[in-house]
């Protein structure tokens, strides 16, 4: 019998980043470390503010908000490779 339940702390096991279809990539040459993307990211996985973003792809869901908000167009969304 399978009972769907989870105990506290399971978010460390469940990598919600798996479902993204596109991953944000930062161009360090264009990045001004303004921290706008880091403030807007709903998952809080864009790294330390005022530093060039280091993205935790295990939990990035690929929502593109950082790409849309970046005033310097330093972030592009790159398609993930998927098995068909």
């Amino acid at each position: 019998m399978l009972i769907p339940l989870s105990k506290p702390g399971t978010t460390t096991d469940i990598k919600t980043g798996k479902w993204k279809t596109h991953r944000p990539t930062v161009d360090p040459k264009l990045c001004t470390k303004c921290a706008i993307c880091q403030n807007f990211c709903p998952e809080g996985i864009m790294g330390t503010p005022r530093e060039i973003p280091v993205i935790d792809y295990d939990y990035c869901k690929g929502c593109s908000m950082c790409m849309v908000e970046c005033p310097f167009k330093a972030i592009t969304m790159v398609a993930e490779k998927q098995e068909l």
Partner: protein
Amino acid sequence: MIKTTNGATALAETAKNCEPEVVAGYPITPTTHVVEEMNRYYANGETKSFIAVESEFSALSALIGGAAAGARTFTATGSQGLLLMHEVLFCSSGMRLPIVMVVGNRSVSAPLSIWNDEQDSVSQRDTGWIQLYAKNNQEASDALIQAYFIAEKTFIPVMVCVDGHFLTHTTEQVDIPSKDEIKRFLPPFKPMVTLDPDQPLSMGVYAAPAYYQEFRMDLHSDLEKSAAVISDAGKRFGQVFGRSYGLVEEYHVKDAKEVLVGLGSAMENVKAAVDEMRKQGKKVGALHVRVLRPFPREELRRILSGKHVGVIDRALSPGAQPPLFTEIVEALQGTSSTVSSFFGALGGRTLKIQESKQLFEKMSKGKALKEWITVTVEKNEAEIETC
């Protein structure tokens, strides 16, 4: 104790004697007085709780909370109330919570009707609940006690389906076991996991594509396996109370050429028709499908092979063949049986003894039939405006 009482009151008393800890309800015809009685028991200090909720959706949701905390639970509903529970029915079976509910079968709106057919519960057959049907109030009361046994053993919720008005509002003698007598059959509920602040966990959580299907596969196979537990419950019940039950009830089926098959109270009339026709030497029989989910496919195949089977459906699947008929046709695939479909007796119309006899007569000609039943109504009864 044998009491002369109406079905709803008998069911409420039976439920009380099973000692549920969490009871929630929102009254709806025809099970209003089940809920009313449960409320009264609580007010009189005879039960531990009654949560007066604002809808049937909330009633079943409250029971999910109760069952998740490890309590034995109870509610009653029917018709629109059961339809409003639809989403929560899936949640409760998916979370494997052994909730028990009485459904007073009633037709569904529109047009509005408070009378009996089985559209409401038959439409919920895919929700992962076990469904037991009763022909009379004794069977209904007995099924309710067995429902707790089955649910708490299989961790699958059970609905006990009782024809509204025909049973819920009919007064007859019912032997209602006391709390102590029930304890001889029903062991205390031992939950597998419970909500506990000291050991926190979430139930019914998110399952990504990598996990979801396994849960559904597991529920499906456990429902199929639950048939053995239901049979066992029926036998054990007989050992304690002298009334045994199986997945189906056969009545003169063994040597019968024509057999009418159906759910619920209508089968009492069919049985009476069988009695009358047997007196004239006609080899006919009746079969009550007591358990619709899990569907007793193998039993039906074994019992009905080679016979002319007439399936009575008091619920429709508009635009397709009636539900019970389709499932019986599938069960009898590859056998030499002929299967006829009789559908109707909706919204309070009665399949009478006389008409049941006519169905047997028509079937005896051997051809498979597909036709409506109970279509002739006396003129002054039918005040339907057509445009």
